[in-house]
């Protein structure tokens, strides 16, 4: 299956290098990770198509099986949002749903046999690609920065007066004091802490998902390396047989475990986004 040119190292690299398209010649920023963009949009379309199909004919009567399933998800997310988010926004719940399903689908790409899609790719002339969008830092940061943009937007508009409310909170929380002078001194650590927090939020959000998925994919690849460069004859020799069986078992166990991880990561991403947006909607009482 895998081309043996570079041995194990080459094989691993092959799976973790993005297929890129340079939009502007020799400019690292204007380089697009074609595979990530392709799969992420494909999955977004899959999600929208699937949900829209049900939403179009959603009825209050007896729901179809699919509708029932989606209602289960939506009811669950709606409950979570109502639980955590106390503001009044029409955006947060759909955002949570989008994140949960979309990230789940991206992570799910991890469970597709590591060589299947790249192999299909070679058939149409693409010699390498990365199939799991959430192992691309650009994708996870794209999501977390998107959430952060909304957080800033709501922080600015909800905390009155416009923008100033947010900056005031920056200086007066978490340490506060009724004494004005003390408060002014406390502003220094406050601002420092808030800057760290503000930066940490999107970075940790994006990195957490990326790290988990990247590690998971890497382990799948390492498991696949066990029988790298094996021919059909090797599979039936004693050593080759043992390797093949152990690869199968390892991949099975890791895949089963990974089902948990991908769901959990999608869930965590969604929950943290809701939490951050809730914080953006909270108006602290002025002291």
């Amino acid at each position: 299956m895998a081309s043996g040119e570079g041995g194990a190292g080459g094989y691993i690299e092959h799976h973790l290098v993005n297929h890129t398209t340079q939009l502007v010649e020799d400019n690292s920023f204007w380089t697009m990770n074609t595979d990530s963009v392709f799969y992420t949009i494909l999955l977004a379309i899959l999600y929208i198509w699937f949900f829209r199909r049900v939403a179009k004919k959603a009825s209050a009567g007896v729901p179809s099986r699919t509708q029932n399933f989606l209602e289960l998800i939506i009811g669950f997310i709606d409950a979570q949002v109502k639980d955590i988010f106390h503001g009044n926004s029409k955006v947060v719940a759909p955002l949570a749903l989008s994140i949960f399903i979309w990230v789940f689908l991206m992570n799910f790409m991890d469970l597709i046999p590591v060589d299947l899609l790249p192999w299909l790719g070679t058939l149409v002339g693409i010699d390498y690609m990365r199939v799991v969008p959430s192992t691309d830092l650009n994708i996870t940061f794209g999501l977390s920065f998107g959430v952060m943009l909304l957080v800033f937007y709501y922080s600015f508009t909800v905390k009155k007066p416009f923008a100033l409310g947010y900056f005031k909170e920056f200086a007066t929380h978490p340490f506060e004091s009724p004494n004005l002078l003390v408060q002014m001194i406390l502003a220094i650590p406050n601002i420092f802490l808030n800057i760290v927090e503000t930066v940490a939020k999107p970075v940790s959000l994006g990195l957490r998902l990326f790290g988990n998925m990247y590690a998971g994919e890497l382990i799948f690849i390492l498991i696949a390396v066990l029988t790298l460069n094996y021919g059909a004859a090797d599979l039936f020799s004693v050593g080759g047989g043992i390797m093949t069986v152990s690869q199968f078992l390892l991949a099975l166990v890791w895949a089963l475990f990974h089902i948990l991880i991908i769901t959990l990561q999608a869930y965590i991403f969604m929950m943290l986004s809701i939490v951050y947006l809730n914080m953006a909607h909270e108006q602290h009482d002025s002291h």
Partner: protein
Amino acid sequence: MNINVTLVIQMVVFFAVIWFTMKYIWPQILGAMEEREKKIADGLAAGDRAEKELNQAKAKVETLITEAKEQASHIKDQATQMATKIKDQAKSDALAEKERQLHAAKAEIEQEANRAKEALRQQVSALAIAGTEQLLSKEVDAAKHADLLDDLIKEI
């Protein structure tokens, strides 16, 4: 592992997905769910109400039946009384009628008997006259001997 334009593309797609979900997916499905919830709640409330109404109706029926039974037995009593009265009345009427008819029959019989007696008397007197005529071999002047005949008739 470079940060590049992919991030921006992803962010744009992300907002598009959120917008689409917000506009065309979330409200429809959640709306259907809420509508169904309301329907079920309404249904349950209607069920409760219907049960209450049923119980009320049952109670009402119960009282109606009791009342009807009472009325029926009352009517039955009245009817029995009336029947007894009518029977008695009929009996007495019949007795009276019997008496009356008996009287009438008796009177008629008596009349009939008198009439027969009268006819008999006349026939006897005619016979007596005829007999006497024969005896005397001559005609008795009926007119002349009317007194005598009358006496004779009376004697008979």
